[in-house]
Protein backbone atom coordinates (compact mmCIF):
# COMPACT_ATOMS: atom_id res chain seq x y z
CA UNK A 1 0.00 0.00 0.00
CA UNK A 2 1.19 3.48 -0.64
CA UNK A 3 2.49 5.88 1.94
CA UNK A 4 -0.38 8.15 2.81
CA UNK A 5 0.30 11.82 3.33
CA UNK A 6 -0.84 12.93 6.73
CA UNK A 7 -2.77 16.12 7.39
CA UNK A 8 -1.63 19.32 5.83
CA UNK A 9 2.08 20.00 5.85
CA UNK A 10 3.41 22.08 8.71
CA UNK A 11 4.82 25.38 7.69
CA UNK A 12 3.04 25.31 4.35
CA UNK A 13 1.90 28.90 4.08
CA UNK A 14 -1.74 29.12 5.06
CA UNK A 15 -3.21 32.07 3.19
CA UNK A 16 -6.31 34.17 3.64
CA UNK A 17 -7.62 36.47 6.37
CA UNK A 18 -8.48 33.60 8.68
CA UNK A 19 -4.89 32.33 8.62
CA UNK A 20 -3.71 35.48 10.37
CA UNK A 21 -6.06 35.06 13.33
CA UNK A 22 -4.97 33.56 16.61
CA UNK A 23 -5.31 29.75 16.52
CA UNK A 24 -6.57 29.42 20.08
CA UNK A 25 -9.34 31.96 19.44
CA UNK A 26 -10.36 30.11 16.28
CA UNK A 27 -10.43 26.80 18.12
CA UNK A 28 -12.47 28.31 20.95
CA UNK A 29 -15.04 29.75 18.54
CA UNK A 30 -15.35 26.46 16.67
CA UNK A 31 -15.89 24.77 20.00
CA UNK A 32 -18.59 27.20 21.17
CA UNK A 33 -20.53 27.04 17.91
CA UNK A 34 -20.38 23.22 17.90
CA UNK A 35 -21.61 23.08 21.47
CA UNK A 36 -24.53 25.45 20.85
CA UNK A 37 -25.57 23.45 17.79
CA UNK A 38 -25.96 20.28 19.87
CA UNK A 39 -28.97 21.90 21.51
CA UNK A 40 -30.71 22.95 18.30
CA UNK A 41 -33.00 20.43 16.61
CA UNK A 42 -34.98 22.22 13.95
CA UNK A 43 -33.85 22.17 10.33
CA UNK A 44 -34.17 25.89 9.57
CA UNK A 45 -31.71 27.36 12.08
CA UNK A 46 -28.76 25.12 11.11
CA UNK A 47 -29.59 25.65 7.44
CA UNK A 48 -29.20 29.40 7.85
CA UNK A 49 -26.04 28.92 9.91
CA UNK A 50 -24.63 26.60 7.25
CA UNK A 51 -25.12 29.16 4.50
CA UNK A 52 -23.47 31.86 6.62
CA UNK A 53 -20.59 29.57 7.63
CA UNK A 54 -20.00 28.51 4.04
CA UNK A 55 -19.84 32.11 2.87
CA UNK A 56 -17.54 33.09 5.73
CA UNK A 57 -15.14 30.19 5.17
CA UNK A 58 -15.06 30.69 1.40
CA UNK A 59 -14.37 34.40 1.86
CA UNK A 60 -11.77 34.22 4.62
CA UNK A 61 -9.70 31.30 3.35
CA UNK A 62 -8.56 30.80 -0.19
CA UNK A 63 -9.91 27.31 -0.68
CA UNK A 64 -11.02 26.86 -4.29
CA UNK A 65 -14.77 26.11 -4.62
CA UNK A 66 -14.05 22.72 -6.14
CA UNK A 67 -11.70 21.75 -3.27
CA UNK A 68 -14.25 22.98 -0.75
CA UNK A 69 -16.90 20.79 -2.35
CA UNK A 70 -14.59 17.76 -2.30
CA UNK A 71 -13.75 18.31 1.35
CA UNK A 72 -17.49 18.16 2.08
CA UNK A 73 -17.72 14.57 0.84
CA UNK A 74 -17.01 12.58 4.01
CA UNK A 75 -19.35 14.42 6.34
CA UNK A 76 -21.97 15.03 3.64
CA UNK A 77 -22.12 11.26 3.24
CA UNK A 78 -22.29 10.85 6.99
CA UNK A 79 -25.04 13.48 7.17
CA UNK A 80 -27.03 11.67 4.51
CA UNK A 81 -26.82 8.43 6.49
CA UNK A 82 -27.99 10.19 9.65
CA UNK A 83 -30.85 11.81 7.73
CA UNK A 84 -32.08 8.52 6.24
CA UNK A 85 -31.87 6.57 9.47
CA UNK A 86 -33.82 9.23 11.33
CA UNK A 87 -36.41 9.60 8.59
CA UNK A 88 -37.01 5.84 8.62
CA UNK A 89 -36.69 5.02 12.29
CA UNK A 90 -38.38 7.78 14.23
CA UNK A 91 -41.95 7.31 15.46
CA UNK A 92 -44.49 10.01 14.65
CA UNK A 93 -46.91 11.13 11.95
CA UNK A 94 -46.51 8.65 9.08
CA UNK A 95 -46.04 10.21 5.65
CA UNK A 96 -45.31 7.06 3.67
CA UNK A 97 -44.91 3.39 4.47
CA UNK A 98 -44.06 0.15 2.69
CA UNK A 99 -43.73 -3.08 4.65
CA UNK A 100 -41.51 -2.49 7.69
CA UNK A 101 -40.35 0.88 6.33
CA UNK A 102 -42.10 4.12 7.11
CA UNK A 103 -41.17 7.76 6.90
CA UNK A 104 -42.41 10.21 9.53
CA UNK A 105 -42.66 13.99 9.64
CA UNK A 106 -40.72 14.09 12.91
CA UNK A 107 -38.08 11.83 11.40
CA UNK A 108 -37.59 14.11 8.40
CA UNK A 109 -37.39 17.20 10.57
CA UNK A 110 -34.93 15.83 13.13
CA UNK A 111 -32.95 14.03 10.43
CA UNK A 112 -32.56 17.19 8.36
CA UNK A 113 -31.55 19.14 11.43
CA UNK A 114 -28.86 16.61 12.40
CA UNK A 115 -27.55 16.37 8.85
CA UNK A 116 -27.32 20.16 8.57
CA UNK A 117 -25.58 20.33 11.94
CA UNK A 118 -22.96 17.93 10.58
CA UNK A 119 -22.50 20.25 7.60
CA UNK A 120 -22.11 23.39 9.73
CA UNK A 121 -19.51 21.84 12.03
CA UNK A 122 -17.85 20.24 9.02
CA UNK A 123 -17.45 23.44 7.03
CA UNK A 124 -16.19 25.34 10.08
CA UNK A 125 -13.71 22.58 10.80
CA UNK A 126 -12.52 22.76 7.19
CA UNK A 127 -12.00 26.50 7.58
CA UNK A 128 -10.13 25.98 10.84
CA UNK A 129 -7.87 23.22 9.56
CA UNK A 130 -7.13 24.95 6.27
CA UNK A 131 -6.19 28.21 7.97
CA UNK A 132 -4.28 26.87 10.97
CA UNK A 133 -0.79 25.46 11.23
CA UNK A 134 -0.77 22.70 13.85
CA UNK A 135 2.60 23.71 15.24
CA UNK A 136 1.49 27.34 15.62
CA UNK A 137 -1.68 26.15 17.31
CA UNK A 138 0.33 24.22 19.89
CA UNK A 139 2.51 27.27 20.56
CA UNK A 140 -0.60 29.40 20.84
CA UNK A 141 -2.26 26.94 23.23
CA UNK A 142 0.93 27.05 25.28
CA UNK A 143 0.82 30.86 25.48
CA UNK A 144 -2.85 31.73 25.48
CA UNK A 145 -4.40 28.63 27.05
CA UNK A 146 -1.58 27.97 29.54
CA UNK A 147 -0.87 24.49 28.26
CA UNK A 148 2.33 23.38 30.06
CA UNK A 149 5.59 23.38 28.05
CA UNK A 150 6.14 19.66 28.64
CA UNK A 151 2.74 18.72 27.28
CA UNK A 152 3.12 21.17 24.40
CA UNK A 153 6.45 19.78 23.30
CA UNK A 154 5.44 16.18 23.91
CA UNK A 155 2.60 16.74 21.42
CA UNK A 156 4.94 18.44 18.96
CA UNK A 157 7.37 15.52 19.25
CA UNK A 158 4.38 13.29 18.51
CA UNK A 159 3.69 15.36 15.43
CA UNK A 160 7.26 14.87 14.27
CA UNK A 161 6.82 11.13 14.77
CA UNK A 162 3.60 11.27 12.80
CA UNK A 163 5.43 12.89 9.89
CA UNK A 164 7.75 9.90 9.61
CA UNK A 165 5.01 7.37 10.25
CA UNK A 166 3.75 6.87 6.67
CA UNK A 167 7.27 5.88 5.59
CA UNK A 168 7.71 3.61 8.60
CA UNK A 169 4.29 2.02 8.01
CA UNK A 170 5.00 1.36 4.37
CA UNK A 171 8.32 -0.30 5.18
CA UNK A 172 6.73 -2.50 7.84
CA UNK A 173 3.93 -3.49 5.46
CA UNK A 174 6.46 -4.41 2.79
CA UNK A 175 8.70 -6.25 5.23
CA UNK A 176 5.72 -8.28 6.38
CA UNK A 177 4.33 -8.79 2.90
CA UNK A 178 7.51 -10.43 1.66
CA UNK A 179 7.03 -13.12 4.30
CA UNK A 180 3.36 -13.72 3.67
CA UNK A 181 2.07 -16.44 1.36
CA UNK A 182 0.61 -15.10 -1.85
CA UNK A 183 -3.13 -15.27 -2.37
CA UNK A 184 -4.45 -17.66 -5.03
CA UNK A 185 -4.59 -14.88 -7.62
CA UNK A 186 -0.93 -14.07 -7.03
CA UNK A 187 -1.40 -10.81 -5.16
CA UNK A 188 0.05 -9.90 -1.82
CA UNK A 189 -2.17 -10.38 1.21
CA UNK A 190 -4.13 -7.49 2.67
CA UNK A 191 -6.55 -8.13 5.40
CA UNK A 192 -7.30 -7.64 9.01
CA UNK A 193 -4.59 -10.01 10.29
CA UNK A 194 -1.87 -8.44 8.18
CA UNK A 195 -2.94 -4.93 9.20
CA UNK A 196 -3.11 -5.92 12.86
CA UNK A 197 0.41 -7.39 12.78
CA UNK A 198 1.80 -4.32 11.06
CA UNK A 199 0.01 -2.08 13.57
CA UNK A 200 1.55 -3.94 16.49
CA UNK A 201 5.04 -3.65 14.99
CA UNK A 202 4.45 0.07 14.46
CA UNK A 203 3.34 0.42 18.07
CA UNK A 204 6.41 -1.37 19.46
CA UNK A 205 8.85 0.60 17.32
CA UNK A 206 7.12 3.90 18.11
CA UNK A 207 7.02 3.31 21.88
CA UNK A 208 10.76 2.73 21.89
CA UNK A 209 11.37 5.76 19.70
CA UNK A 210 9.17 7.82 22.03
CA UNK A 211 11.29 6.88 25.01
CA UNK A 212 14.42 8.05 23.20
CA UNK A 213 12.68 11.26 22.10
CA UNK A 214 11.72 11.98 25.71
CA UNK A 215 15.39 11.58 26.64
CA UNK A 216 16.38 13.98 23.85
CA UNK A 217 13.83 16.56 25.01
CA UNK A 218 15.06 16.33 28.59
CA UNK A 219 18.67 16.62 27.48
CA UNK A 220 17.65 19.92 25.83
CA UNK A 221 16.41 21.18 29.18
CA UNK A 222 12.65 20.85 28.66
CA UNK A 223 11.00 21.37 32.04
CA UNK A 224 13.38 24.01 33.42
CA UNK A 225 11.82 27.20 34.62
CA UNK A 226 11.85 30.07 34.01
CA UNK A 227 11.90 29.77 30.25
CA UNK A 228 11.62 32.31 27.45
CA UNK A 229 9.52 32.27 24.32
CA UNK A 230 11.01 33.06 20.97
CA UNK A 231 8.54 34.48 18.43
CA UNK A 232 5.38 34.44 20.55
CA UNK A 233 2.03 33.95 18.88
CA UNK A 234 0.20 37.26 19.37
CA UNK A 235 -3.35 37.92 20.41
CA UNK A 236 -4.55 41.11 18.68
CA UNK A 237 -7.59 43.35 18.68
CA UNK A 238 -8.63 41.80 15.37
CA UNK A 239 -8.90 38.43 17.14
CA UNK A 240 -11.27 39.86 19.72
CA UNK A 241 -13.22 41.54 16.95
CA UNK A 242 -13.60 38.27 15.09
CA UNK A 243 -14.77 36.50 18.24
CA UNK A 244 -17.32 39.21 18.98
CA UNK A 245 -18.55 39.16 15.38
CA UNK A 246 -19.02 35.40 15.22
CA UNK A 247 -20.85 35.27 18.55
CA UNK A 248 -23.06 38.21 17.59
CA UNK A 249 -24.09 36.57 14.32
CA UNK A 250 -24.80 33.29 16.11
CA UNK A 251 -26.92 35.07 18.72
CA UNK A 252 -28.83 37.06 16.10
CA UNK A 253 -29.67 33.96 14.06
CA UNK A 254 -30.95 32.14 17.14
CA UNK A 255 -32.99 35.15 18.20
CA UNK A 256 -34.62 35.67 14.81
CA UNK A 257 -35.29 31.94 14.48
CA UNK A 258 -36.95 31.87 17.88
CA UNK A 259 -39.06 34.94 17.05
CA UNK A 260 -40.24 33.38 13.80
CA UNK A 261 -41.10 30.19 15.67
CA UNK A 262 -38.61 27.88 13.95
CA UNK A 263 -36.24 27.22 16.82
CA UNK A 264 -36.60 23.85 18.53
CA UNK A 265 -34.49 22.33 21.31
CA UNK A 266 -33.59 18.88 22.60
CA UNK A 267 -37.17 17.96 23.44
CA UNK A 268 -37.78 17.51 19.70
CA UNK A 269 -35.97 14.17 20.05
CA UNK A 270 -38.51 12.82 22.47
CA UNK A 271 -41.50 14.05 20.49
Amino acid at each position, binding site marked *: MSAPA*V*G*RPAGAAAVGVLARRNPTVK*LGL*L*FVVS*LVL*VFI*LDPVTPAVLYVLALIAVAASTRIAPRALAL*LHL*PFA*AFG*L*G*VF*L*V*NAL*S*RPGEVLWSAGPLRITVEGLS*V*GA*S*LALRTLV*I*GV*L*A*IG*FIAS*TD*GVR*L*MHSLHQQARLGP*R*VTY*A*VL*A*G*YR*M*LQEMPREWQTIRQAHAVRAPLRPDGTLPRGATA*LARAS*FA*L*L*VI*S*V*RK*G*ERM*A*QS*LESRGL*GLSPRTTWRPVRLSAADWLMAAGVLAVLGAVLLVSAMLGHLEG*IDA*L*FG
Partner: protein
Amino acid sequence: MVSTSPDRQTAPRRTPWPLKDLVLLVVLGVVFGFVYWVFVQAWTALSIAMGPAGDLAQHFLAGSWLLVAPLAIAIVQRPFAGVIAEVLASVIEVVFLGSAVGPMLFIAAAIQGVGSELPFAATRYRSYGWLTYALSGLMGAGLVFFYSALRFGWYGQDLFFTRLAIHLLSGVVLGGLLAKVIVEGLARTGVVDNFAIGQTRLAAGHGTR
Protein backbone atom coordinates in the same frame (compact mmCIF):
# COMPACT_ATOMS: atom_id res chain seq x y z
CA MET B 1 27.97 4.38 48.04
CA VAL B 2 24.76 5.62 46.59
CA SER B 3 22.04 3.29 45.69
CA THR B 4 19.00 4.45 43.86
CA SER B 5 16.02 2.56 42.73
CA PRO B 6 12.90 4.65 42.61
CA ASP B 7 10.13 3.25 44.73
CA ARG B 8 7.17 2.88 42.46
CA GLN B 9 5.26 0.23 44.32
CA THR B 10 2.62 2.50 45.72
CA ALA B 11 0.11 3.93 43.32
CA PRO B 12 -1.26 6.55 43.03
CA ARG B 13 1.68 8.88 43.36
CA ARG B 14 1.87 12.62 43.81
CA THR B 15 5.17 13.17 41.99
CA PRO B 16 4.97 15.16 38.73
CA TRP B 17 4.57 13.19 35.55
CA PRO B 18 7.90 12.06 34.06
CA LEU B 19 8.30 13.37 30.54
CA LYS B 20 8.66 9.85 29.18
CA ASP B 21 5.21 8.99 30.48
CA LEU B 22 3.73 12.08 28.83
CA VAL B 23 5.47 11.28 25.57
CA LEU B 24 4.21 7.70 25.80
CA LEU B 25 0.61 8.92 26.00
CA VAL B 26 1.24 11.10 22.97
CA VAL B 27 2.84 8.17 21.13
CA LEU B 28 -0.21 6.01 21.83
CA GLY B 29 -2.41 8.81 20.47
CA VAL B 30 -0.22 9.19 17.38
CA VAL B 31 0.02 5.48 16.60
CA PHE B 32 -3.67 4.76 17.11
CA GLY B 33 -4.65 7.99 15.37
CA PHE B 34 -2.56 6.90 12.40
CA VAL B 35 -3.79 3.31 12.40
CA TYR B 36 -7.45 4.40 12.67
CA TRP B 37 -6.77 6.78 9.87
CA VAL B 38 -5.44 3.93 7.70
CA PHE B 39 -8.44 1.76 8.60
CA VAL B 40 -10.89 4.64 8.22
CA GLN B 41 -9.87 5.17 4.62
CA ALA B 42 -11.30 1.77 3.86
CA TRP B 43 -14.05 2.21 6.41
CA THR B 44 -15.43 5.48 5.00
CA ALA B 45 -15.78 3.98 1.56
CA LEU B 46 -17.53 0.99 3.06
CA SER B 47 -19.95 3.03 5.15
CA ILE B 48 -20.87 5.24 2.21
CA ALA B 49 -21.55 2.11 0.20
CA MET B 50 -23.72 0.76 2.99
CA GLY B 51 -25.88 3.88 3.07
CA PRO B 52 -28.18 4.03 6.08
CA ALA B 53 -26.77 0.76 7.39
CA GLY B 54 -23.37 2.47 7.66
CA ASP B 55 -24.75 4.71 10.36
CA LEU B 56 -25.63 1.62 12.35
CA ALA B 57 -22.44 -0.27 11.53
CA GLN B 58 -20.31 2.39 13.24
CA HIS B 59 -21.34 0.89 16.56
CA PHE B 60 -19.56 -2.38 15.82
CA LEU B 61 -16.22 -0.62 15.76
CA ALA B 62 -17.03 1.93 18.46
CA GLY B 63 -14.99 0.05 21.07
CA SER B 64 -11.75 0.39 19.13
CA TRP B 65 -11.75 4.15 19.77
CA LEU B 66 -11.41 3.38 23.48
CA LEU B 67 -8.16 1.42 23.26
CA VAL B 68 -5.79 4.26 24.08
CA ALA B 69 -7.10 4.77 27.62
CA PRO B 70 -6.66 1.25 29.05
CA LEU B 71 -3.25 0.93 27.35
CA ALA B 72 -2.07 4.19 28.86
CA ILE B 73 -3.35 3.27 32.32
CA ALA B 74 -1.84 -0.20 32.25
CA ILE B 75 1.57 1.09 31.19
CA VAL B 76 2.07 4.20 33.33
CA GLN B 77 -0.32 3.22 36.16
CA ARG B 78 -1.13 6.76 37.21
CA PRO B 79 -4.41 8.52 37.94
CA PHE B 80 -5.87 10.44 34.97
CA ALA B 81 -3.61 8.61 32.48
CA GLY B 82 -6.66 7.33 30.60
CA VAL B 83 -8.40 10.70 30.38
CA ILE B 84 -5.24 12.54 29.37
CA ALA B 85 -4.34 9.91 26.78
CA GLU B 86 -7.80 10.06 25.20
CA VAL B 87 -7.81 13.85 25.06
CA LEU B 88 -4.28 13.98 23.62
CA ALA B 89 -5.30 11.43 21.01
CA SER B 90 -8.29 13.57 20.02
CA VAL B 91 -6.09 16.69 19.85
CA ILE B 92 -3.71 14.88 17.51
CA GLU B 93 -6.60 13.67 15.41
CA VAL B 94 -8.18 17.11 15.05
CA VAL B 95 -5.06 19.24 14.87
CA PHE B 96 -2.63 17.06 12.92
CA LEU B 97 -4.73 14.49 11.12
CA GLY B 98 -7.35 17.06 10.19
CA SER B 99 -10.40 15.19 11.45
CA ALA B 100 -13.49 17.08 10.31
CA VAL B 101 -15.46 15.90 13.33
CA GLY B 102 -14.07 19.02 14.93
CA PRO B 103 -13.44 19.87 18.53
CA MET B 104 -16.53 18.05 19.80
CA LEU B 105 -14.19 15.09 19.66
CA PHE B 106 -12.32 16.52 22.67
CA ILE B 107 -15.44 16.22 24.81
CA ALA B 108 -16.26 12.74 23.55
CA ALA B 109 -12.65 11.73 24.25
CA ALA B 110 -12.72 13.09 27.78
CA ILE B 111 -15.99 11.30 28.54
CA GLN B 112 -14.65 8.07 27.07
CA GLY B 113 -11.46 8.44 29.08
CA VAL B 114 -13.35 8.94 32.32
CA GLY B 115 -15.50 5.89 31.63
CA SER B 116 -12.53 3.70 30.75
CA GLU B 117 -10.56 4.88 33.73
CA LEU B 118 -13.20 4.40 36.46
CA PRO B 119 -12.81 0.61 36.84
CA PHE B 120 -9.02 0.92 37.11
CA ALA B 121 -9.35 3.80 39.57
CA ALA B 122 -11.72 1.68 41.64
CA THR B 123 -8.92 -0.87 42.10
CA ARG B 124 -6.51 2.00 42.93
CA TYR B 125 -4.60 1.15 39.75
CA ARG B 126 -3.57 -2.24 41.10
CA SER B 127 -5.71 -4.76 39.29
CA TYR B 128 -5.09 -5.49 35.64
CA GLY B 129 -7.13 -8.64 35.15
CA TRP B 130 -9.49 -9.47 32.31
CA LEU B 131 -12.51 -8.33 34.31
CA THR B 132 -11.12 -4.85 34.95
CA TYR B 133 -10.37 -4.40 31.26
CA ALA B 134 -13.83 -5.65 30.28
CA LEU B 135 -15.49 -3.26 32.72
CA SER B 136 -13.28 -0.47 31.46
CA GLY B 137 -14.48 -1.06 27.91
CA LEU B 138 -18.07 -1.30 29.07
CA MET B 139 -17.98 1.93 31.04
CA GLY B 140 -16.09 3.85 28.37
CA ALA B 141 -18.49 2.78 25.66
CA GLY B 142 -21.50 3.29 27.92
CA LEU B 143 -20.70 6.83 29.01
CA VAL B 144 -19.81 8.07 25.58
CA PHE B 145 -22.90 6.45 24.09
CA PHE B 146 -25.23 8.78 25.92
CA TYR B 147 -23.22 11.78 24.84
CA SER B 148 -23.15 10.63 21.19
CA ALA B 149 -26.85 9.89 21.35
CA LEU B 150 -27.38 13.54 22.15
CA ARG B 151 -25.04 14.71 19.40
CA PHE B 152 -26.44 12.48 16.70
CA GLY B 153 -30.04 12.37 17.83
CA TRP B 154 -30.35 8.67 18.57
CA TYR B 155 -32.81 9.29 21.38
CA GLY B 156 -36.33 8.49 20.38
CA GLN B 157 -35.28 6.32 17.42
CA ASP B 158 -36.70 2.82 17.06
CA LEU B 159 -33.15 1.52 16.95
CA PHE B 160 -32.05 3.06 20.22
CA PHE B 161 -31.62 -0.17 22.17
CA THR B 162 -30.11 -2.05 19.25
CA ARG B 163 -27.52 0.69 19.02
CA LEU B 164 -26.85 0.57 22.74
CA ALA B 165 -26.39 -3.21 22.80
CA ILE B 166 -23.97 -3.28 19.87
CA HIS B 167 -22.09 -0.32 21.27
CA LEU B 168 -21.59 -1.90 24.69
CA LEU B 169 -20.59 -5.26 23.26
CA SER B 170 -18.03 -3.57 21.03
CA GLY B 171 -16.75 -1.64 24.05
CA VAL B 172 -16.16 -4.80 26.06
CA VAL B 173 -14.47 -6.72 23.25
CA LEU B 174 -12.54 -4.09 21.28
CA GLY B 175 -12.13 -1.44 23.96
CA GLY B 176 -11.46 -3.77 26.88
CA LEU B 177 -10.35 -7.31 26.16
CA LEU B 178 -8.34 -6.35 23.08
CA ALA B 179 -6.48 -3.76 25.17
CA LYS B 180 -5.38 -6.52 27.55
CA VAL B 181 -4.09 -8.59 24.62
CA ILE B 182 -2.08 -5.62 23.32
CA VAL B 183 -0.70 -4.79 26.77
CA GLU B 184 0.49 -8.37 27.26
CA GLY B 185 2.11 -8.31 23.83
CA LEU B 186 3.88 -5.02 24.54
CA ALA B 187 5.11 -6.22 27.93
CA ARG B 188 6.67 -9.28 26.28
CA THR B 189 8.65 -7.17 23.82
CA GLY B 190 10.40 -5.29 26.61
CA VAL B 191 9.75 -1.80 25.23
CA VAL B 192 7.71 -0.85 28.30
CA ASP B 193 10.16 -2.30 30.85
CA ASN B 194 11.16 1.16 32.06
CA PHE B 195 7.59 2.23 32.74
CA ALA B 196 5.53 1.46 35.83
CA ILE B 197 4.21 -1.75 34.24
CA GLY B 198 7.76 -3.11 33.96
CA GLN B 199 8.44 -2.40 37.59
CA THR B 200 5.24 -3.95 38.93
CA ARG B 201 5.73 -7.03 36.78
CA LEU B 202 9.28 -7.35 37.95
CA ALA B 203 8.09 -7.13 41.53
CA ALA B 204 5.45 -9.73 40.77
CA GLY B 205 8.06 -12.11 39.40
CA HIS B 206 7.31 -11.89 35.69
CA GLY B 207 10.82 -10.66 35.19
CA THR B 208 12.55 -13.67 33.84
CA ARG B 209 11.71 -13.03 30.25
